[in-house]
């Protein structure tokens, strides 16, 4: 990586100042922080108050109103702002600059989902030194606000869980006029800063915000993507086993990124989850500016336990922190996703296999690859086009020399239910003869440079470019309108890839936009940088919704993201290398994205830069069939890499791997439904499935597929034919390939020759699959199901869950879906429907009468000769017996879903 192009904390003025504060505190343990409490009161679910701080020179007093609000879903919100900027009594050299601090929650719509809900909040005690409030629907949560020094402690059942400002690092840099600046302030980076020869004029001066957050008795914390690091976050205080730099959240186009680094990558979600046995808590720091997070471990209150102390600081914006007390991880995800937006329920095709490459160079090339998939009998759903399809990289146009008839190409793909996805980036070629550019400039929808008057001009793929200002609602709507079929010559099976939306600026500071560029409303780029990509996707999403007349679910792939982007798009983790290290690093990255809300995530198969040897190629496919987002992609300078090009035996191995993915489409789709409904990740880290087993809390090289019971440990080292997989309990696990049983807590050796990815089905689960492999995912809509019952060792039972709908439209919101619960116990398989909301449409239900279970496999009950099937639909019970053959298979049990 080009490390020198990206800032270290020492090189980021505000980070340096906040880290210096932390150092000062460690050396002055009696120090009580910068702020004194001026006033505080509690009323109707909100604690309100004002902090005050003296100027450095002692001449002025600065006031900071704050609140602690009790919200729905047992969430607490801590907010703080600056009175003078709120009231607009500040003066900047540029009149165009807004005076307020940026509030990401307002911009992103979180406020609409963060209603105060004081009904369950009760003031228990108020003294001259503290305030105690009990809250939560179950009455188990307590918050204790200590006045001096200021501290907020969150307790569950009387035990401290999260503590704010224990180290008194609360910070909000007050407004000061530029005329008052001192050489010392200059040296501290409060004013003009230069990095890598790029100048930041910093017209508003210092405005950073910071806070320390402690997770008491929690030794493991996770989240704050996007970076390639371990799942359980490492310390950032110069530990031998950790880092010397804080985790960074500043979306950048990181070229050939490092594995095992806290360096920021393409997306930013300031969400952190802490876990200890059977207990989860989390915080969400709603801020769109550059953010750094220090992580330190210290002794916990229990013997042999650890607490984690974190320090968060952002360059600008308000302090807006949400606290989730669990106690279960599922509670955290429900509450957090209810706030930022539930992850999307993607169209079915998008969880199939995507074939991409920079660049398929012509219509003929596209259709040849499409035909070859049929010839070699491999399924795939989507083929992709990178920037070369556009005439001179002018997006929304086609290079007619190579793509003369895009609609005809799309029609041919559509005849087999396949899709095309094309890249469209938010940088627009500065060209008066290009309609998008002309409109963007004529309508004044472009980002401005620091003058606030001229358009921000810089280089990206098309050369000199201007950028869409998505903070202008009109610009957003205009951008969305460009996707109409009459504006962009396309058809209904064309979907969108928005790349370079960090935004990436060639030869810009840190390969991105100058922080003093000006956006609509007078915001500096500094204030909104980490959500620029999200706003871009929001514009695209709304445009595609409109294109589909509100009926069709869009698919968008984004590189940059923030909290809430998962409601709109999938992401991929950027420009991987074709190495075993990057293959290994992709797994914790995808897991981290998943628990932070960006569940629909994957890595380029089999690495973006370089040419993999056959072994790495096949192993990467073994891993990738278990990424939520499964796409092959490679750099333009690499060799062609379609899955048949390595010849036999590798072609057959990859074909079989693709078939595993397609067999499991019902499993994946159900996992996405659970994600959409509850905010759960698609892939469950070990700690999520076994919250009591401490040995698994840091494991990040194996995972579960949703709650299906499938435990996967990909092979990520060369020259291996067996692998050790960790079992967290004494349950029996069945090898999905040959039904071999594994039991006993601890490490088990599983065969893993090339092409055989280690997958175990945990006892107690029923796996619901479709064994008929079609050319594309949508073509499976009428196919029967196979149930695989893995009988548990303890209790001798099993259960499973299936969700299905048309996979294309939003009609599931009108009841056009089916939910079926399967359970097995004592030789009885029960299938029942669910009383879910909205009610199932009878018309839709009737249209699915042909759906059936064609086969039932039973693992773990060798001696059983027959079972009873009990079908419960609309409370009507039907029962019949079916026979089990010698291999544990039930042939055509006459079980229909409706």
């Amino acid at each position, binding site marked *: 990586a080009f490390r020198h192009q990206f800032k270290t904390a020492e090189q980021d003025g505000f980070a340096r100042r906040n880290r210096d504060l932390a150092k000062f505190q460690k050396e002055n343990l009696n120090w009580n922080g910068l702020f004194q409490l001026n006033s505080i009161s509690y009323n109707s679910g909100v604690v309100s108050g004002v902090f005050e701080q003296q100027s450095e020179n002692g001449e002025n007093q600065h006031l900071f109103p704050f609140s602690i609000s009790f919200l729905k879903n047992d969430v607490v919100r801590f907010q703080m702002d600056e009175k003078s900027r709120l009231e607009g009594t500040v003066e900047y050299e540029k009149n165009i600059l807004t005076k307020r601090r940026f509030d990401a929650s307002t911009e992103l719509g979180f406020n609409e989902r963060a209603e105060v809900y004081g009904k369950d909040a009760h003031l228990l005690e108020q003294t001259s030194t503290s305030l105690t409030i009990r809250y939560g629907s179950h009455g188990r949560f307590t918050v204790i606000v200590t006045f001096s020094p200021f501290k907020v402690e969150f307790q569950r059942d009387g035990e401290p869980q999260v503590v704010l400002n224990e180290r008194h690092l609360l910070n909000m840099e007050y407004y000061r006029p530029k005329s008052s600046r001192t050489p010392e302030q200059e040296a501290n980076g409060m004013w003009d800063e230069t990095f890598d020869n790029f100048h930041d004029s910093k017209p508003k001066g210092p405005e950073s915000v910071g806070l320390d957050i402690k997770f008491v008795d929690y030794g493991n914390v996770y989240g704050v993507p996007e970076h390639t690091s371990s799942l359980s976050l490492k310390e950032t205080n110069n530990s031998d086993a950790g880092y010397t730099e804080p985790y960074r959240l500043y979306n950048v186009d990181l070229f050939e990124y490092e594995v095992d680094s806290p360096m920021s990558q393409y997306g930013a979600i300031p969400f952190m989850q802490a876990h200890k046995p059977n207990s989860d808590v989390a915080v969400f720091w709603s801020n769109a500016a550059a953010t750094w997070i220090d992580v330190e471990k210290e002794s916990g209150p229990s013997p042999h336990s650890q607490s984690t102390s974190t320090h968060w600081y952002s360059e600008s914006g308000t302090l807006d922190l949400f606290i989730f007390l669990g106690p279960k991880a599922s509670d955290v995800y429900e509450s957090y996703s209810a706030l930022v937006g539930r992850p999307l329920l993607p169209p079915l095709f998008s969880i199939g296999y995507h074939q991409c490459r920079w660049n398929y*160079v012509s219509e003929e090339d596209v259709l040849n690859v499409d035909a070859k998939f049929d010839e070699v009998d491999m399924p795939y759903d989507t083929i992709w086009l990178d920037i070369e399809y556009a005439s001179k990289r002018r997006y929304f146009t086609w290079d007619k020399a190579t793509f003369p008839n895009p609609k005809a190409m799309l029609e041919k793909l559509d*005849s087999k239910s396949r899709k095309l996805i094309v890249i469209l980036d938010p940088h627009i070629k500065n060209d008066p003869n290009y309609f998008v550019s002309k409109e963007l400039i004529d309508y004044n929808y472009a980002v401005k440079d620091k003058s606030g008057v001229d358009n921000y001009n810089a280089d990206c793929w098309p050369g000199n470019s201007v950028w869409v200002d998505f903070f202008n609602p009109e610009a957003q709507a205009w951008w969305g309108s460009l996707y109409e079929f009459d504006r962009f010559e396309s058809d209904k099976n064309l979907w969108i890839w928005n790349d370079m939306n960090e935004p990436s600026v060639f030869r810009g500071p840190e390969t991105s936009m100058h922080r003093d560029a000006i956006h609509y409303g007078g915001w500096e780029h500094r204030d909104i940088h980490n959500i620029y990509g999200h706003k871009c996707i929001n514009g695209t999403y709304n445009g595609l919704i409109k294109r589909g007349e509100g009926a069709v679910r869009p698919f968008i792939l984004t590189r940059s993201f923030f909290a809430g982007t998962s409601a709109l798009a999938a992401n991929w983790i950027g420009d991987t290398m074709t190495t075993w290290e990057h293959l290994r690093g992709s797994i914790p990255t995808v897991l981290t994205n998943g628990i932070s809300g960006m569940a629909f995530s994957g890595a380029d198969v089999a690495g973006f830069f370089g040419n993999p040897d056959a072994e790495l190629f096949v192993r990467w496919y073994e891993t990738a069939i278990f990424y939520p987002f499964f796409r092959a992609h490679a750099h333009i*300078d690499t060799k062609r890499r379609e899955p048949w090009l390595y010849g036999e035996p590798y072609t057959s191995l990859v074909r079989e791997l693709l078939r595993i993915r397609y067999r499991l489409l019902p499993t994946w789709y159900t996992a996405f439904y659970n994600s959409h409904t509850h905010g759960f990740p698609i892939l469950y880290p070990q700690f999520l499935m076994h919250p009591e087993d401490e040995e698994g809390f840091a494991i990040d090289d194996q995972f579960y597929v949703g709650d299906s019971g499938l435990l996967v440990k990909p092979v990520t080292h060369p020259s291996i034919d067996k692998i050790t997989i960790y079992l967290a309990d004494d349950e029996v696990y069945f090898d999905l390939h040959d039904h071999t049983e594994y039991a006993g807590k601890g490490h088990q050796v599983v065969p893993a020759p090339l092409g055989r990815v280690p997958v175990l089905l945990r006892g107690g689960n029923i796996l619901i699959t479709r064994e008929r492999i079609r050319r594309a995912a949508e073509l499976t809509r009428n196919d029967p199901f196979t149930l695989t019952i893995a009988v548990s060792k303890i209790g001798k039972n099993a259960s499973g869950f299936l969700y299905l709908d048309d996979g294309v439209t939003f009609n599931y919101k009108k009841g056009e879906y089916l939910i079926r619960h399967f359970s097995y116990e004592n030789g009885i398989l029960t299938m029942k429907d669910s009383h879910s909301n909205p009610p199932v449409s009878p018309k839709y239900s009737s249209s699915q009468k042909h759906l059936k279970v064609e086969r039932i496999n039973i693992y773990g009950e060798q001696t059983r000769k027959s079972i009873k099937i009990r079908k419960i639909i609309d409370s009507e019970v039907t029962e019949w017996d079916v026979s089990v053959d010698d291999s544990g298979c039930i*042939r055509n049990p006459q079980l229909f879903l409706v």
Partner: protein
Amino acid sequence: ANDLRGVASDKSDLYKPDAKGNWKCLGSDKLISFNQVNDDYCDCPDGSDEPGTSACHNGKFFCKNTGYISSYIPSNRVDDTVCDCCDGSDESLIKCPNTCAQKAREYLATLEEHNRLVKNGLKIREQWALESAKKTDEVKARYKEISDSLVAVSAEKTQLSEKVEKMKRSTDLGAEAVLPLDFQDLRVALLSLVDERNEMQERLDILTNLLDELTLLYETDKFDETMKEAILSFEDLKEQEIRRKVSSDDVHNYLESCNNHLSMLTGPSEDITFSSLIKDIKKILNSLVWNIKLSLINFGILSPSASSTPLTDSESYRRFEAAQRDLDAAEENEKSLEKEHTKLMHELEYHHGWDLYRAIKGMETKREIGGYTYKVVFYENVFQDSILLGNFASQEGNVLKYENGQSCWNGPHRSAIVTVECGVENEIVSVLEAQKCEYLIKMKSPAACSPDQLKQSLLNTQNSANENAVNGMEDKESSVDEL
């Protein structure tokens, strides 16, 4: 007969139950109830029990396609709501329109157009083949001419070789016979000279003694001036003589050295070729003569001003050398002719893939695509504007490979694969940079036309007449699709 779905009529006999109502899988010994055939559940490992459903992932479905061409499709395309058989028989969940008649019309029109194109292409190809044959005849004539020249030159070489060999033998014989004798005579002469020198030395000693006695007896005042002058001159000479004295040992050493040199020359070694022997002899003789001359001068026998005549090349040797030069020239000429002979033979025998190679070598085809002008030169090179994409390397069927083009900025050398299809003129159809710096070029040319490309209609207009062709159809299905 009521055919099973997905089974060709001529194979329906394979799908009949035995007396017990059972049926055996076609590719294995597994026995199942006949009721299980086409029951949408896969029982046979080879998929043969479900020819008409998608239950088996490895089955094959027969499309009757009455009016068009029967074909097989993979079973995993049955009942997937995509119409693959033109008669729609692969879909029972949706209604597929029967497009067989339309496809048949399109097929016949395409077939007719294809055949017309092939015929026209073949006509042009015949012209090129004739032209190529003419050029081949020219090459053959050239080959014959070279062959004849080669025979003549070979004969000349043989003759010259014999002559040289003969001269070598005669010269060798002469040398072997004569030289030792000459050397012996030379030794005798040398010994005589030494004897003469010794005798003269004795006389000189006597005279010296006489003069010494005279000097002892004379009294300067009693002799006349003439006598006095003579005595003084003698004394001067005596001093000079002492300085110029050469020892007898030196003489013996010189003689021994000369004798050794001469001994080496009396019996030539088999390892020495005649030419080198002559050269060595000349060198040694010159050295010997020079040494002898120096010795004689040192001994005072020979005046330093005496000139010497070096040995000269014999006339026979000069004739030999001339003959050898002629032979070498003949050999060189033969070699050159053989090289061209081999080249022409190779050119005549080597199969370049196309029999009209000579007619189209160097033929240029140009087209502008994507802002670049591409130029394909048959059997020479391919250019993109002025960038060399490759030089001709090999041909395999109708695929020409050009390699080692200009180097890419960060990658391999450029290369191009030109796939040629039958056409009525040379035309570049498309250029695809499928991978960085690797260009796939599609061309049309009469050169790629072949009579076996002419196609007969495969339509099955009757229910049974053409069904026997279905087995063969599997292999030809792709060629039908290519029409």
